[in-house]
């Protein structure tokens, strides 16, 4: 019975996928949550009343939002350039854009220190004498976060732009719309779901960035320590409850992002 065997095979396949996701994702994340609430709301209460931790959380959110804004604006711009225009070096640029995903974040951090470092960097000293400190300060953290999340918006938007094609844009131009009007009224609505996905992915990535931020931030308590650095610090200092509670908050935001997007998305696009 062919029907029976394909049914059975499908069931087995479904089970394998479910088990894989359970042991790799769901169970570990659940355990973080369970450990966070091991002593009731005490752990959460502790970290939320600790001014250093709340400062770190606020810093993480501010950095993530700035990085996402920058990456969205440049991501959409670069995507349009890549899809709609031909220019020499396009392939090289395309390959370069994947670099941040393939290079280890810690290498990114070191590289940024080499360029912007206050004492030995390329033009770090010049910037510093002009009163702008990059490394071991918030601009450095933003820079590192922008770098690691750079391709996410682009990789979501480029395929959508390619699929939509440029005929609608040409039609808009022939009907009298200038470049800005065409972008706002035609291109942006057509690619909006790609942009939203890119933004959510970037946001999740930016909130969770650790390696690059660790190198460039200097990890100064109450100044440049971000949420992920707090998790590490507390974990190493045997404050496991605090580490789990902070980790839980980070995971919560990520899960919330995913839920919000799937709720927002209209049925026809699914």
């Amino acid at each position, binding site marked *: 019975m062919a029907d029976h065997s394909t049914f059975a095979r499908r069931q087995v396949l479904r089970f394998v996928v479910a088990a894989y996701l359970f042991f790799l994702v769901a169970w570990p994340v659940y355990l973080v949550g369970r450990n966070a609430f091991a002593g009731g709301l005490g752990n959460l209460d502790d970290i939320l009343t600790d001014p250093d931790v709340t400062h770190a959380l606020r810093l993480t959110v501010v950095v993530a939002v700035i990085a996402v804004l920058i990456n969205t604006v440049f991501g959409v711009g670069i995507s349009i350039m890549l899809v709609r225009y031909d220019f020499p070096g396009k392939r090289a640029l395309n390959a370069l854009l994947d670099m941040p995903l393939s290079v280890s974040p810690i290498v990114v951090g070191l590289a940024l220190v080499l360029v912007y470092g206050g004492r030995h960097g390329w033009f770090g000293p010049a910037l510093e004498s002009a009163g702008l400190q990059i490394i071991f300060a918030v601009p450095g953290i933003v820079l590192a976060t922008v770098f690691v999340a750079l391709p996410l918006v682009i990789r979501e938007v480029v395929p959508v732009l390619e699929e939509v094609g440029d*005929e609608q844009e*040409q039609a*808009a*131009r*022939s*009907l*009298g719309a200038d470049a800005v009007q065409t972008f706002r*009224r035609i291109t942006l609505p*057509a690619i909006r779901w790609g942009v939203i996905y890119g933004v959510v992915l970037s946001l999740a990535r930016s909130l969770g960035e650790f390696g690059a931020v660790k190198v460039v931030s200097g990890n100064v308590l109450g100044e440049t320590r971000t949420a992920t650095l707090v998790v590490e610090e507390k974990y190493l200092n045997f404050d496991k409850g605090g580490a789990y509670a902070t980790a839980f908050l980070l995971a919560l935001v990520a899960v919330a992002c995913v839920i919000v997007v799937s709720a927002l998305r209209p049925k026809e696009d699914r």
Partner: protein
Amino acid sequence: MSIEIVNVGKRFGDFVALDDVSVSIPSGRLTALLGPSGGGKSTLLRIIAGLERADTGTVRIEGVDATGLPPQKRNVGFVFQHYAAFKHLTVRRNVAFGLEIRKRPRDEIRRRVDELLALVHLEQFADRLPAQLSGGQRQRMALARALAVEPTVLLLDEPFGALDAKVRKELRDWLRRLHDEVHVTTVFVTHDQEEALEVADEIVVINDGRVEQIGSPDELYDRPANEFVMRFLGPVTRLGDQLVRPHDLQLSISDADGVVGRVTRVTRIGFETRVEVTTAGGQPVTVTLTRNEFQALNIQLDSEIRIRLAPGSPTTTTTATQPCAETSTLIPTH
């Protein structure tokens, strides 16, 4: 003259799309750019619209030099083969787009859009999204959208190419009637000679990036300038070194003049009968007759017969040695 194209050239890499093309397109008429695929006709249309930039030459629209103008400054309406509907906007908003860009008052936009939707018979679809329309309806919407801005010229790029045969025929008739009502200077691109002959006031035949001939459908069909136009506009067959239309040939058993041949094949297709006659020189000639003519002649296979060209019929001297594509594909050789 509404559109003046002077010495326009365009290359894509090594490929010459347009080679020094000059055309004048008259005001208020329906003009077809006719030619085979890849011949440059769509490129010429896109250059008129400003969607493509000419490498050389100038384009004037209603006396204004438009060569360097971006598309939004040319006031042309453009209709695409694949509709280019704004997918996220309703039919009404699609049609209103050009007027909204021009910041017309809201009630004027509404009135004008209602008029246009009535003109293209889409009143009851005003609040639908393009995805909920058929291909023919989408193309009518695209046409209303292009007409909304009261364009100086209306340009259509293979407007019916993506539609099935029946809808294509309907829309073709409808475009002709619409043009008789609206009178906007219209240029449409097609590779279908029947479409061009049926709809257009004026036909520009374009091939290999060059203009082969410009004229009315009658002029082109009856007085083709060269072999290409002769072949492209209708069926042809060879008689000696002349290309002629198979329906311009007459057969006779009793006549004393004409080319002598022998009937080698008879094919009946509905109202039309194709008779293949092999001349004494061994050349196969196709003659098409109506059913009545065929029956009156009482032609028998393998009988001797004479072929004569009807007086005043168009002919061109052919240089090609291969058999005529038009007839050889339709009638298998033995």
